[in-house]
């Protein structure tokens, strides 16, 4: 396939899928088949682009011109390639999982759910392949709006309130700061194209660099930098598959991806390190990183704890970008993939526990390891990856982030990263510990020893829930070994003009 067509196809397929899902709404099995086929086809198409990009190619597709100089156009570069792979690749297990979850849990309005889901993936791919800030902003807002019905899925007062927070913060930041930053950039440079080495060098100086970067960093509300992080915990009222793919992968990664793109292709890391315009951002990111981890420690609701963990992990990626060093950017890029795989596993597990036992709180999980050994083991692997220990992918991204901090002579942030790792041990490991080693609070069925007894004691969620989470848990380990491939992809990125 011609790479240009592959780009168009991979963006359009989820949109067509959404249409197909809407049309097949009356036949649940057909509808689910459409979702799965679309997800598979999208991933295959995206995968098809990898060799070209790896070889240094930058396939592009210009759709049309909206205003003079503002075009709706796509171009695939390594960061976007990676994000697209993550978003489309993880859609497949999530689609399987959603089917199991929605049916196991008897959700209503499933058609709307799956349609909006496909639309969100459409927007995510648009963001991933955007060639300029305008295209990125367009899909950024599509992503916000298409996920609003998912957040408010249950239609009750709690959902309505959460929806207000969600939309309020994401629209406010994007319209007020991000759009202002984009128009300002256009006014300064006359272009919005992402280009190697940035477009702002020499066009702006002094404290304005830091202000403009601030507009971008806070304007990208999806990156959940404090104090604009409240929407993410609020969004947890959504059904768990939404939290898993969207609020751990597609949406939040769209945010940090945007920040990274802006740092690398609009400012340029050389320009930022010369002007030191991003130093303040390192501190804000570090604060978010530590504060969110500490808040996570205090949360008893499992999904809320994971949400704060996500906020903390997103700040790692922003920090890596703000360091404005090559290794920092590589570390951030890798962390997009590593954290995605780890966090989606954790959310899948949280959802599976909810479907099987209707338990939402950490304090209720005592002894669950006996009845749900697969889920809790997967949770363990995902946790290891979030903490950043071998043999999981998370170890590599942390390694490169620390290298980036050293390279930029900001050793203090190495310490921040280490402290945060300790904190994440603090909020994740007790969950696994409780599940495996604490006695269950409920009455136990008589345990007969041996393998037969082990199988008899299992009361897992439906297979369609458990299988995907085992898959992504295995993915966490696999990424440890495939990290060099990701690094190789990222290294083809041209960071200087």
């Amino acid at each position, binding site marked *: 396939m011609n790479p240009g067509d592959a780009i168009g196809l991979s963006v359009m397929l989820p949109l067509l899928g959404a249409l197909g899902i809407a049309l097949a709404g009356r036949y649940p099995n057909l509808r689910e088949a459409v979702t799965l086929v679309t997800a598979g086809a999208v991933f295959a198409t995206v995968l098809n682009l990898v060799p070209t990009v790896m070889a240094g190619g930058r396939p592009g597709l210009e759709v049309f011109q909206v205003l003079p100089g503002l075009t709706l156009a796509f171009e695939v570069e390594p960061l976007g390639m990676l994000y697209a792979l993550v978003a489309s690749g993880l859609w497949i297990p999530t689609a399987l999982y959603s089917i199991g979850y929605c049916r196991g849990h008897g959700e209503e309005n499933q058609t709307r759910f799956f349609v909006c889901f496909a639309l969100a993936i459409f927007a995510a791919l648009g963001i991933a392949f955007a060639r300029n800030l305008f295209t990125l*902003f367009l899909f950024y807002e599509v992503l916000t709006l298409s996920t609003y019905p998912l957040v*408010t899925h249950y239609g009750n007062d709690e959902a309505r309130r959460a929806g207000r927070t969600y939309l309020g913060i994401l629209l406010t930041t994007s319209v007020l700061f991000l759009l202002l930053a984009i*128009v300002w950039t256009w006014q300064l440079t006359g272009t919005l194209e992402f280009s190697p080495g940035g477009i702002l060098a020499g066009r702006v100086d002094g404290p304005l660099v830091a202000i403009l970067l601030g507009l971008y960093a806070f304007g990208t509300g999806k990156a959940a930098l404090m104090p604009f992080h409240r929407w993410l915990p609020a969004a947890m009222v959504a059904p768990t598959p939404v939290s898993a793919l969207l609020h751990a992968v597609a949406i939040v990664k769209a945010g940090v991806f945007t920040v990274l793109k802006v740092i690398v292709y609009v400012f340029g890391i050389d320009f930022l390190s010369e002007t030191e315009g991003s130093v303040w951002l390192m501190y804000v990111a570090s604060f978010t990183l530590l504060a969110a981890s500490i808040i996570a420690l205090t949360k008893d609701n499992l999904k809320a704890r994971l949400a704060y963990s996500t906020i903390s992990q997103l700040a790692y990626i922003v920090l890596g970008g703000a360091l404005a060093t090559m290794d920092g950017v590589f570390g951030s890029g890798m962390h997009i993939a590593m954290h995605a795989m780890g966090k989606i596993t954790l959310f899948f597990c949280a959802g599976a526990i909810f479907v099987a036992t209707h338990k939402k709180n950490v304090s209720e999980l005592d002894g669950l390891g006996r009845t749900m050994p697969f889920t809790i083991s997967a949770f363990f692997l995902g946790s290891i990856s979030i903490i950043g220990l071998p043999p999981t992918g998370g170890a590599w991204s942390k390694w490169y982030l620390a290298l980036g901090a050293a390279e930029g002579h900001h050793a203090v942030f190495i310490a921040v990263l280490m402290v945060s790792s300790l904190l994440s041990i603090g909020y994740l490991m007790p969950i696994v510990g409780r599940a495996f080693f604490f006695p269950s609070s409920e009455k136990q069925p008589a345990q007969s020893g041996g393998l037969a007894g082990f199988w008899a004691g299992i009361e897992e969620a439906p297979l369609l829930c458990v299988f995907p989470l085992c898959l992504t848990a295995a993915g966490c380990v696999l990424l440890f070994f495939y990290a060099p491939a990701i690094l190789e992809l990222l290294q083809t990125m041209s960071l200087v003009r």
Partner: protein
Amino acid sequence: MTEHLPALQTALPLLAAPVCVLLRRAALVRVFAVLVTWSCLAIALSLLQEVLGHGEISYALGGWVAPLGIEYRVDILNAYVLVLVATIASVVIAFPLAGRELRIPKERFFLFYALFLLCLAGLLGITITGDLFNIFVFLEISSLSAYALIGLGRDRRALTAGFSYLVMGTIGGTFILIGIGLVYQMTGTLNIVDLSQRLPPVLGTRTVWMAFAFLVVGTSIKLAAFPLHQWLPNAYTYGPSVVASFLSATATKVAYYVLVRLLFTVFGFAFVFERVQLSALLLPLSLIAMVVGSLAAIYQTNIKRLLAYSSIAQIGYMTLGLSLANLDGLTGGLVHLFNHGLIKGGLFLVVACALSRVESPRIESLRGLGKRMPWTMAAFVVGGLGLIGIPGTVGFVSKWYLVLGALDQGLYFVAFMVLASSLLAVVYVWRVIEVMYFSDEERAPERDDAPLSMLLPTWVLIGATIYFGLDTELTAGVAEQAAAYLLGGAS
């Protein structure tokens, strides 16, 4: 034939209006009015094409050459406005009239169509003519028919709303007439092009300054620019929704056009923005309009009044573009003229659709309509996104130019306010969306959407807000040319 198109543009609807009264039969009149309006659109489009291809058209009415005779003069600016007015009219006229919203019985619907065509003739006349007194004449034709159209609303308060519109409109009209008189006194001409040459030597006189003040205030009343907007909310609230749709998308826009014409062609950039420094007044008022209009919209309980207050805010965007007085700002103002026409016209048609199924225009009565009338309510969502200015809708294009215009002038605060006020739009739009889609009823209501004959015109306008949000050649492209043309004479 084609050289007479400028005359036909106004003569056709003007002559067709009495024919409606003769035809009388509702169905027959409707078909006739639709055909006439669509012909007007065809004429407007061919005029625009002609102007884009071959430059300005000057047409001497009755063969009497200007400055003695009345000249119809079509340049890129008014060709663009003609297209907007004719487009909105063509869509609205096709919308089926609902007896529920009108105080006249079906046998007398022909009166509506006659008034509508008169109003259209007036609006097109104001736009196309190159003669200042002629502008006043057509202004009165359109205004008088507009008062009557508002008064057709079923709610008895429509009569008082129409009456106060009449009072305010007449004051505005009188101011304009006084201004024209003073200008005529100083120059001895009423032709706009002629005026633009004869005025400069006398610009220092107090008479001209007075004329300027009367003309600007008079048009601002017609435009409903803050703080002269008091007539608008009631008129749109109690008038029939189709009338509100038509007037909100055309009448205020044509008044805006007159203001632009006066400022840039008649009085000239140097006088208006350097000697009088109109921006010092207009800019803060525009900002207040944006904020106060949006805040007022947030607190409304009636959907039509909400849209009316939103109009006041949106008119603030348009006058803001004017007061920035640079290429991007003026382009933003002019493109918003078209864009807001599409959005607000479409949204009032959505209300008309909804009122075919529910009794009252109270927001509360829309509860749960998201399930019952999915297509109608989806149209509201899309139109609302346009008001907010989400990328991919026309609202974004306007906002883009306005923010850029503000940044060009170094007015960072203004740029910030444009964006901040669009967040207020999020609040008032989402208030309605929440009511429509979150219902406490357990069982989903039966699907009972408006008929296709209503949905189709609505979606034509709402669809256009998306189309012109992505393909801006006809809107922003032409608006930018018009802005360059207006500023070209100045700098």
